[in-house]
Structures are given as C-alpha cells and as structure tokens.
C-alpha cells in the first residue's frame, strides 16, 4: 500500500472532521458575544437565556474542536516530515502566531466565559465573550494565511530545496489570501446562521421557547440576507483570482478540457480523465467566459493546456464545487422563504421543516469548498514548487499509516457520534428555565461552590 495515498486520506479525513467544528464555533462565538452585548444593552431576558443555552453548546463543540485540532500540527510531523522540514521557515511562524495570538487567548477567556459568570463583573464576562470570538477569528486569519501560501506561494526564495521567507507581508498577504479569508469567514458565519435557524425552527415546530426562537430566526435571517449576496461577490472574485494564479484548478472546477474563447458555464457533466472530455454535458454558452473574464469571448485555459503530471484530478473538484454552489442556493431559498412567512411569526409547517432539513447546508458547503480548493491544488502541496508525493515522511510504510488511519477513523466515529448525540440532547433539553445569575455584589468565598444548573 502506498503511504503517500494513505497519508493523504488520513489528513483529508482528520481535517474534514476537525473543520466541521470551527465552521460552527467561529460564528457561534461571535453570536454569543452579540447575545451577551444585546442583553447588557436591552436587558431583555431572552438574550441572556439564549446566550446561556448556546454557551453550553459552544462548550461541547469547542472542546471537540480543540482535541481534533491538536491532532493537526502533529500530522505534519508524523506523516509529512519532508514537507515540514522544507517549508518550516515559512509555515512554522504562521502557525506559531496562530497558537500565540489565538489558542492561548481562546483557552484563557473560554474558562471565564463558561464558568466565570458568577465570579467576574458582567462587563468582564461580556469582554471574555468578545475576546473568545476575536480569538477564533485570529485563528482563522493565521491558518488561512498558511493555507493560502501553499495555494499561491509568494514572498520567498528556494535555497537548497528549502523555502526561505524574504518578505513576510507578501508571504501573509499572498495573492489568494484576502479572498480565501473573506470567503471562509463568511461561509462559517452562514454555517452558524443556518444551524441557529434550524434549531429555532425545531423549537417553533414543537411550540417551545416561541419568543426566543423567533429572535433566533430573525437574527439568523438578517445575517444571511447580508452575507449570501456578499458571498456571491466574494466567490466570484475568488474564482477570478484562481483563474489568474491556479488556472489548472479553475479548469477542473469548470470542467473545461479544451482551452479557448467563449467558454460555456457547465451546469452538469461527467468528466472523463482517460478520454479527456466530458460526457452528458449541459452548459450555458459563453457564460463562464463572462463571469471569469468579464467578456463574452474571454479566453479560459482548459485542462489539456497543461501536461498530465501537472493536472489536478478532474472529477472531485468539479462535483464538490457544484455541491457547494447548490448549498448556497438552498440557503438563498430558505432566506427568501423566511422573509415571506415573517409576518406570521414563521408559523409555517413547511418552512419550519425545510429550515430543520437545511441545518447541514453550511457544513456540506464548507467541506465541499475545502475539497474543491485542496484537491484542485494537487499534485502540489506547495503549488508549483513542492509535490505532495515528495512531502511524506520517508520512513513510513503503508502498514504504519493504515494502522493509524483505521484507529483515527474508529476513534472519530465514537467521538463525533457521541458529540452529535450530546449536542442533540442539549437542544432537546432546551433553554434554561432560570436566568443565569450574574455575580452578586460580594465575591463568593468559594469559586464554583454554588451549583448553577447541574
């Protein structure tokens, strides 16, 4: 068995499952900070009850995100030691800053956010919520800087095969970074929004927490109304950026084999890598040229313009991209529907069921988008400079990696299965009956001594 392929499967598996959690918690941290702020501002109890409820969900999700995240940097050491050694001077500091600016910050203030409501003044608790939210965004900044550098490397020179940073501003703000950062942050905010909307829909359907649930739907829908059109613009800019810097990836996404002017937007096809053509192609003439080059007759390169050993796989990016766009369309649909039933207090059975069914849209979209961009970068790990096949740890055998892969799959099945089950139970349990108490006037003599809710 090939240790390279198995290591790739292992990394893809671990990062896909890890990313489901930040995809939710980045947005949720911001949402909790907003709820806490709204409560301090309006004193409306619904906000505090909502915050207390989502904090509990956040604790479970964030814990799973932390432990599955600790696994990631060590993958670089155990399975991708050649990559680590050659890119360390560039990638190491970017990830180091993530730990220094984000992980420590989140960890310290998370403790206060989760357990400190009675121990610190309300404004310190609110500040902790903001700091945790900021920490999640710092984390996204640095890890996406590292990832974007692998996609569109800049600001370095290669000395004896090693990547040596020359200009850090160019390394961080490499060509695809601003687009990827904006695209990803908007995507994870949308993921949280549709999770919140779906949970609220479940409560409304079961006639529970009506006031708070309407607030949740309204907040989610307002956010989606702003972010969904914005995501379309950012996505388009990101695509144009990919056309410029990673033309093979773009050709795979669009399903274009023969380069040339006036490319159609292919809605559906079955790309065939062996025959280098599409089967069952349905497309809109010239549309791809229009949105990629902003001209009906714009020239777009096809996969056949590149030697076979420099092409990404054709099938996976093509379908993953369409899946992502499909999720965006579902979100638009739910948002529009929400506006129509808003006057009725969202009291429409069909709408509520549709909203519940659309909880996964964000998670599917980010996973599909991630698959598109990462598979589209192949066969390179650092685009144009270092091949994935040359990055794996040389001493690993296929059997070694198979053992670890099987163990990871088994453990993650247990952990993620249990995690999902407990999250659903927390939702089922509902919002807290009593308002969480803020710190009384005097500081209690014994921290954590008076149980809030068991």
């Amino acid at each position, binding site marked *: 068995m090939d240790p390279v392929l198995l290591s790739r499967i292992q990394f893809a598996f671990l990062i896909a499952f890890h990313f489901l959690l930040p995809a939710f918690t980045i947005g949720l941290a911001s949402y909790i900070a907003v709820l806490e702020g709204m409560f301090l501002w309006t004193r409306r109890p619904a906000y505090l009850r909502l915050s207390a409820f989502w904090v509990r969900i956040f*604790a*479970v999700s964030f814990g799973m995100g*932390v432990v*599955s995240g*600790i*696994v990631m*940097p*060590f993958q*670089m*050491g*155990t*399975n991708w*030691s050649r990559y*680590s*050694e050659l890119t*360390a*001077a*560039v990638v*190491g500091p970017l*990830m*180091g*800053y993530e*730990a*220094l*600016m984000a*992980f*420590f*910050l*989140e*960890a*310290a203030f*998370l*403790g*206060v956010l*989760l*357990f*400190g409501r009675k121990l*610190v003044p309300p404004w310190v608790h609110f500040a902790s919520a903001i700091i945790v939210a900021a920490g999640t965004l710092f984390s996204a900044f640095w890890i996406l800087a590292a990832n974007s550098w692998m996609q569109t490397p800049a600001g370095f020179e290669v000395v004896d095969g090693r990547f*040596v*940073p020359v200009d850090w501003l160019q390394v961080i703000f490499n060509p695809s970074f601003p687009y990827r950062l904006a695209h990803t942050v908007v995507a994870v905010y949308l993921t949280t929004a549709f999770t919140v909307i779906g949970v609220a829909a479940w409560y409304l359907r079961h006639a529970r927490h009506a006031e708070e649930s309407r607030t949740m739907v309204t907040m989610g829908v307002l956010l989606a109304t702003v972010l969904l059109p914005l995501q379309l613009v950012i996505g388009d800019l990101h695509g144009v950026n990919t056309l410029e810097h990673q033309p093979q990836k773009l050709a795979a996404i669009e399903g274009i084999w023969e380069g040339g002017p006036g490319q159609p937007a292919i809605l559906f096809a079955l790309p065939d890598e062996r025959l280098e053509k599409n089967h069952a192609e349905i497309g809109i003439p010239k549309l791809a040229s229009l949105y990629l080059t902003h001209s009906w007759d714009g020239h777009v390169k096809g996969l056949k313009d590149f030697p076979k050993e420099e092409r990404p796989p054709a099938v996976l990016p093509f379908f993953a991209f369409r899946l992502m766009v499909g999720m965006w369309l579902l979100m638009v649909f739910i948002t529009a529907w929400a506006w129509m039933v808003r006057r009725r207090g969202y009291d429409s059975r069909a709408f509520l069921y549709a909203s519940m069914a659309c909880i996964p849209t964000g998670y599917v979209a980010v996973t599909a988008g991630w698959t598109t961009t990462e598979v589209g970068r192949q066969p390179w790990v650092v685009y144009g400079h270092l091949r994935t096949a040359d990055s794996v*740890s*040389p*001493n690993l*055998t296929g059997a*070694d990696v198979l053992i*670890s892969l099987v*163990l990871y799959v088994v*453990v993650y099945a247990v*952990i993620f299965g249990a*995690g999902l089950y*407990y999250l659903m139970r927390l939702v089922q349990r509902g919002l807290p009956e009593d308002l969480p108490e803020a710190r009384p006037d005097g500081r209690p*003599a*014994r*921290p*954590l*001594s*008076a*149980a*809030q*809710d068991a």
Partner: protein
Amino acid sequence: MSLDLVPIWTVILALSVFMYVLLDGFDLGLGILFPFAPDDRARDAMMASIAPVWDGNETWLVMGGLGMLTAFPVAFAIIFPALYFPVLAMLLGLVFRGVAFEFRASASAGRRHWWDRAFFWGSLAATFAQGCVLGKFVLGFELNGRQYAGSTWDWLHPFVLAVGVGLVFGYVLLGATWLVMKTEGELQRWARAKARLASFGVLAFIVLVSVWTPFLHQHIAARWFSWPNMLFFSPVPLITALLALWLWRALARGGDVAPFIASMGLFMLCYLGLAISLFPYVVPHTLTLWDAATAPEGQAFLLIGTMFLIPVIFTYTGWSYWVFRGKVRAGAGYH
C-alpha cells in the same frame, strides 16, 4: 550572518515544553487518579478543579510542537516520524480525555462512567506515550545524514518503557498535590495519601533513570562524572533529595500548597538534569541545536511576536487562574 537566534529559541522551546509538562502534567495526573477517587462527588470536584484551565494547559503542547517546527525543523522532521506510534497514542489519548470533560457533564447518570473511563484511559495513554517520547529522545535516533533512518518501531526499548512508567508516577504526583491544594476534607486527605504513594514511585524512577542514563551513552557519563563537572553538577541530586524531603514533610504536616510546589520543583530538577545530559543536542547524540536550526528569517519573524506575546499570555492566563482561585468543593456546579 546576523545575530545567532538559536540560544533564545532553545530557551523558548525549553520553556514551552516545561510549561506543558507542569500544567498538563497535573491535568493528566488527575485523570489517572480519577477512577480511584472515593466517590462521584469527589470526581465532580476533581473535574471542576481543572475544567476552566485544561485547554490552556494543552496549548503549550501545540506551542512546543510549533516552536520546534519553526526553530529546529530538521529535528521536528526526524523525531515525529520516528515516534509515529507513541505520538499517535498520545493524540488519541488526548482526544478521549479532552472530550470527556463536556461529554461526562452531558451524559445521563447511567452512561457517565463511560466517559470516566475515557478520561482515565486517555490520560494514562497520553502520559505513558509522552514518557516514551522522552525516553526515545534520550536514547537517540538512527540517522542517515539529516534524515531518520530507523523504523517506526525503534522506540520499543526497555529504557523507553521505563521512562513511560516513570512519567505516569510523576504526573500522578503533580495531579495529587494539585488536588491537595484545591480541595479540602476527605478528598484532600485521600489526595494526600495518593501523593505520598506516587512520591515513592517518582523517587524510585528518578534514581533508576539517573543511574541508567549514563550507561546509555559515553558522553553523558563523561558530562556528569568528569572533574570539575562533578562538582558543578553535584547540587542537582542534592537539591532533588532536599525537595523530596520537603515534599514528604509537607504531606505529613498538612501543608496545602507546599506539596504542589515541591513536586513542581522535582520536575524542574529532573528537567535540568536532562538538559545537562543532552545539551547541545536537539536530536540527541547526533544533531546539535545549531545543526538543526532553520533559516534565521523564519526564526526572527516569530521571535518578535513571541517575545511580546509570551508575557501577555502569562498575564492573562495568570488572571484566569486567579479568577478560579481557592478551594473547589465536592458537588461544585458545572457551568
């Protein structure tokens, strides 16, 4: 060639690893003690005593890993593939024990014991695996040029396994003395007894490893037993012995904080002893810190942030420990 940044990176890396060992050490040790606690109320209190801080403690592990990647990538690329399975065991152990905090609180009363077990076995596996990582590090790595040339199973060696067991005792001592500091009443008395038991194990393994290590490599023996080094380094075993005495007295006399400080002191002395044995190697016995260092451009960029941010991190982490200061009681609420 500008300033040599290797010494300062050595200090940062050593600090990160030491912070990790101390902080996650008491976390993990507490996890190993978990199933032996008197009752469920005691277990709730134990968990509550570390719930607000464990995540920050584990972050030092990530910092240590990334610090090594940034400053000594050659060492990173040798050590981690060589320790493929111990690192795997450590990561899976940390996954199980990390989720146990929240899952245990969410589980129904009938299923809670599953996550008690996950917490125990995860903590034990992670600790033993970390001990194996340390043991193999001291033992050294087979290289071909600057690449690892051994197999993924070379770490299976009696010395490595012995260090693994030794670290289990060490973390249990930290966990038990942490509990002596954070609890009172019956739970504290129990923790005190466990700390005493663990301290015998720790001392036995300190002696065993200290005697064994010089036999592993000629140059380690020479480092310690040549004149005048013997004189310079003689305080290390002496202070270790004094700390052990202090620990026992504090445990016997009912001190709350002293046992934890004495245990941390023991760890510091062991760490110092290790540094004396291994300096200047980062891949012991073959590559020095300077051999394995990265391009100074990468080191310098992260160094600026590190010098500024580490004091900030110490400040707010210290503040969060301060918020949760004092004794935790059995039956303490979660959230």
